[in-house]
């Protein structure tokens, strides 16, 4: 992280990053999430921030801090598939230092197509993030019909909280 990019504002270290969807933005260093093992197929991408897009939609952006072009649309999986649930393994709990259940935020990566009807959300490999410790991981659930790799997003309207 270059020091020229960051300025000191109060107790927060602010830095500018380039993003895929929102141009250049300012983030607070304390908000950076560490994915120790990166994402599957992107093992070198370890630093991300979650960026809100629209409070009315169960969607956000997961943006790499280091690479502008690495930005994902992510969705709150429970809003798209009723009854979606899974257990976090003991190993993952330890890796992410999960002590308080409420600190865990779950998102799933969205594959955006031309229309929402064609877009899908990856329920097989959700992202679990310990917001307290700012640690995240893409986990792989046991292959199962309840966890499709490409779950249709068409249900966005109506079910969105």
């Amino acid at each position, binding site marked *: 992280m270059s020091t020229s990019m960051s300025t000191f504002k109060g107790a927060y270290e602010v830095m500018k990053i380039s993003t895929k969807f929102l141009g250049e933005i300012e983030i607070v260093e304390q908000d950076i999430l560490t994915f120790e093992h990166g994402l599957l197929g992107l093992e070198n991408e370890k630093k991300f921030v979650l960026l809100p897009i629209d409070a009315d*939609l169960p969607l956000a952006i997961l943006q790499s801090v280091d690479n502008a072009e*690495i930005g994902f649309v992510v969705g709150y999986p429970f809003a798209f598939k009723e009854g979606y649930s899974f257990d976090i393994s003991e190993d993952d709990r330890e890796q992410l230092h999960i002590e308080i259940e409420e600190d865990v935020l779950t998102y799933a*990566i*969205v594959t*955006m197509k031309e229309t*929402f009807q064609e877009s899908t959300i990856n329920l097989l490999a959700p992202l679990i993030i310990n917001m307290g410790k700012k640690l995240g991981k893409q986990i*792989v659930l046991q292959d199962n019909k309840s966890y499709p790799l490409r779950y249709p997003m068409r249900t966005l309207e109506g079910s969105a909280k």
Partner: protein
Amino acid sequence: MLVLSRKKDESIMIGDQIEIKILAVEGEQIKIGIVAPKTVKVHRSEVFEAIQAQNKEALSATSNFLEQLKKK
């Protein structure tokens, strides 16, 4: 890569807690039994490859998706 030959009903140990056993050989299909502690995750490697590919496909999203959202 370590290469071992095994017959039906023979097995190998990985460490002292993981056992891989050949249960059946039927033409091209080999049935493998895996005994491992619950903390060890076992997946078909195609699953990982499919997820890697899906992550990359997700990255190719058009950056004008925010405009799409507004149109909705």
